[in-house]
């Protein structure tokens, strides 16, 4: 177990360097001069461009720039955006917001998705099963921005139940609607995966044995059936957290949340390699660690799985 963990952690290093360099290089090769569109319909004064170019070492080649960037990063300095704001500060304020949103979305996914999955998996082909099937298909078919705008318009503007956008305090109660929107597609996936998994294990020998032994139904489902059926669901939830954090651009936009999604988008458009990489560095680490955590959870869920 210890060796396995160490090996997995060491594997993170080349993945980390490779992915950050690739991203740095990709943003660097986005066409367009970062200062060409900065002064509206007139060209920026040469002096301004020269000042900024020197300040951000943009006259160096991409390897030197990346090297400089990494050297500063290892000392904990994320650098500055072209608007002269510290990227470290941006990450420190935007990340918790995105994380909050992602966690709310994840909780909604887990509760609704798993609940619907268990109910339908146990009573297949009933009215409830069909209802969940139809509604999950419906959710899957709708793009996130449609769900977002419709809910915002209906709940926020038409009925006035919630405020249309999230305030700067980011209260959990305000995040329920955006969290549902962000998690809506995954709710459907989780419900369907859980349903299949439960339905399959329902016919497994150990479940039949447990029922034959005369165990109460609650124990059969809660301990034996559920634990074994959770593996695909946990995989889905774990990788989803990473995806939710990276993919919240649309939801953050609709509900005016100051998260990393908007920062990444803005930074890509303005060619700020340092900002994109700074944010993605944290994302990559989260993603890698979540994957590791999921792999370790397998062993806890299924005693047959061992790590060497």
């Amino acid at each position: 177990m210890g060796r396995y963990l160490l090996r997995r952690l060491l594997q993170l290093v080349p993945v980390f360097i490779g992915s950050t360099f690739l991203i740095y290089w990709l943003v660097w090769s986005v066409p367009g001069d970062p200062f060409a569109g900065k002064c509206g319909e007139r060209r920026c004064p040469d002096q301004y461009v020269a000042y900024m170019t020197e300040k951000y070492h943009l006259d160096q080649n991409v390897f030197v720039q990346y090297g400089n960037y990494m050297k500063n990063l290892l000392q904990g300095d994320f650098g500055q955006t072209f608007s002269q704001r510290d990227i470290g500060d941006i990450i420190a304020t935007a990340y918790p917001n995105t994380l909050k949103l992602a966690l709310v979305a994840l909780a909604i996914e887990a509760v609704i998705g798993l609940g619907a999955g268990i109910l339908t998996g146990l009573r297949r082909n009933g009215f409830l099963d069909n209802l969940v099937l139809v509604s999950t298909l419906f959710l899957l078919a709708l793009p996130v921005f449609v769900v977002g705008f419709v809910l915002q318009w209906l709940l926020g503007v038409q009925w006035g139940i919630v405020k249309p956008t999230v305030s700067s305090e980011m209260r959990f109660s305000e995040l329920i609607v955006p969290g549902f929107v962000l998690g809506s597609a995954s709710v459907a996936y989780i419900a369907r995966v859980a349903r299949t998994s439960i339905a399959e294990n329902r016919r497994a020998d150990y479940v039949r044995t447990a029922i034959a032994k005369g165990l109460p139904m609650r124990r059969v489902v809660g301990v034996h059936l559920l634990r074994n059926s959770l593996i695909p669901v946990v995989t889905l939830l774990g990788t989803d957290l990473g995806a939710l954090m990276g993919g919240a651009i649309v939801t953050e936009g609709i509900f005016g949340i100051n998260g990393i999604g908007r920062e990444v988008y803005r930074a890509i458009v303005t060619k700020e390699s340092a900002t994109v990489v700074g944010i993605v560095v944290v994302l990559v680490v989260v993603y890698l660690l979540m994957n590791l955590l999921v792999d370790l959870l397998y062993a806890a869920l299924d005693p047959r799985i061992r790590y060497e």
Partner: protein
Amino acid sequence: MRVSKRATSAIALSAAAALVASGCSSGDGDGDAAASKDGAIVIHGVQPENPLVPSNTTETGGGKVIDWLFTGLVEYPNDGGAPRNALAESIDTKDSKVFTIKIKKGTKFHDGTEVKAKNFVDAWNWAAYSPNGAQNGSFFADIAGFDKTYTEDPDGADGPQKAPMPTAKELSGLKVIDEQTFEVTLAAPTAVFPTKLGYSAFMPLPDAFFTMKPEEFGKKPIGNGPVKFVSWQDNVLIKLTRFDDYSLRDKMKIKDVDVKLYQDETAAYADLLANNLDFMEVVPTSALAGDKWKTDLGDRGLNTVTPSTALIAFPIYDKRFQNPKLRRAVSLSINRQEISDKIFFGTRKPADSWANPLTPGAKPGNCTACKFDPTTAKQLLTEAGGFTGEMVFYYNSDSSHKDWMDAVAQQVKTNLGIEARAEGIPTFAVFRQNINAHKMTGPYRAAWQQDYPDVENWVNPLYVKGGSSNDGLYSNPEVDTLAKQASSAPSLEASHEAFAKAIEKVDQDVPSIPIYFYGQQSGHSEKIKKLELNNVGELDITSVEL
């Protein structure tokens, strides 16, 4: 020239009347003074691109806040009329070359220090010193000694050479006389110089600015205007409050202003509809379709015009576009009325003059090439020898320009019978890069909003050789001479007359084609009882009453 944003009854009589479609709602009654006094509002904003230093702010996100935080020597009345003195007691000149500027005594910066003549001179010197890299540095080019403090890069910013260090640190044309007086000597007589003084580049800076890094100052700016800076949370909120020691005309009637920084206009619009946001300057384009914003907002909507014009510019450095007859043919083949009606639902007005008619000194209807006349257009095209190949109209597709540019291309194709189409360039940055590098291979969209209200601002930067936004490299010695005479005319009236002559020449050459005048659709919450918009359509924060 310009009708008040709030006047509803006088509109029908005014020359600009047709431009203001429906009147606005606010001002039904005077606000409740008690509610106003401690009142707070939340208004729409976008994250400023740069730290808030007046001479380094060129975009509207930060520009709006700068305009509230600072009061300059002159101010532009909301009705678009001629500028009047704000902080200046008097601006005297005999020859439009040497100006003696006296400022009002006893006004204060937000940190409590007094605004003195020195604060202007130091601020201007800082911006005009090129190694400081101020985006607005070139605004000081009129002042004597600018060539010594501001050096150009001999091969452009991309070239290997660096700009030489300037030989002087200060403009020789600026002289402090006493605490309240300073003297400005220009390199050449410029009648419009006092008008320019209301532009944000010319704001005074407190002594504190010169003791810290500009970016540090810009994160917590200290101004001298009616509104005081409180805090700025990046991407979230800029908090402002009333400056109680403000002694000039435009004191705030409410107390707190939160500028909520949105990334998405539709999110802000949803907040506006739910009364969760008190003012939004421009409603999103999606709300204009089918006049949706009118049904949504009812009497909370405001329809106004702003002194901005959308143009299509020709890359005159490209041989195919050097014949004025061809350019006029293209212009005459465009049905501007139809574009205005069908694509903008009447929210933009067909352009018929070179300078926006809201600008002082501009003559309405002086663009003879702006008519729709396909017959003459065809004839001119034949005289010009036709057009071979494809005429591609370019626009930046990260903003909503596709529809009208497609319509323009389609009209040119139908009415002139040449292969025309519109093509989007992904981002504004790439689009501007190609324009700056003079690499455009077809006509492209452009827009111009005046920096300061004078017709001069619609000629010198756009149509004079070497003008800061003459991107198509149009050059006509006659226009240059006339514009130069007009700029150095002894009075504004004489200057306006002379610019009208220069524009007549421009009209014959058609270096670009005006398409429409911008309109602006704003909205406010039920809470606001009274408000005015300033001369460029921004909220006049000091007029707000609850």
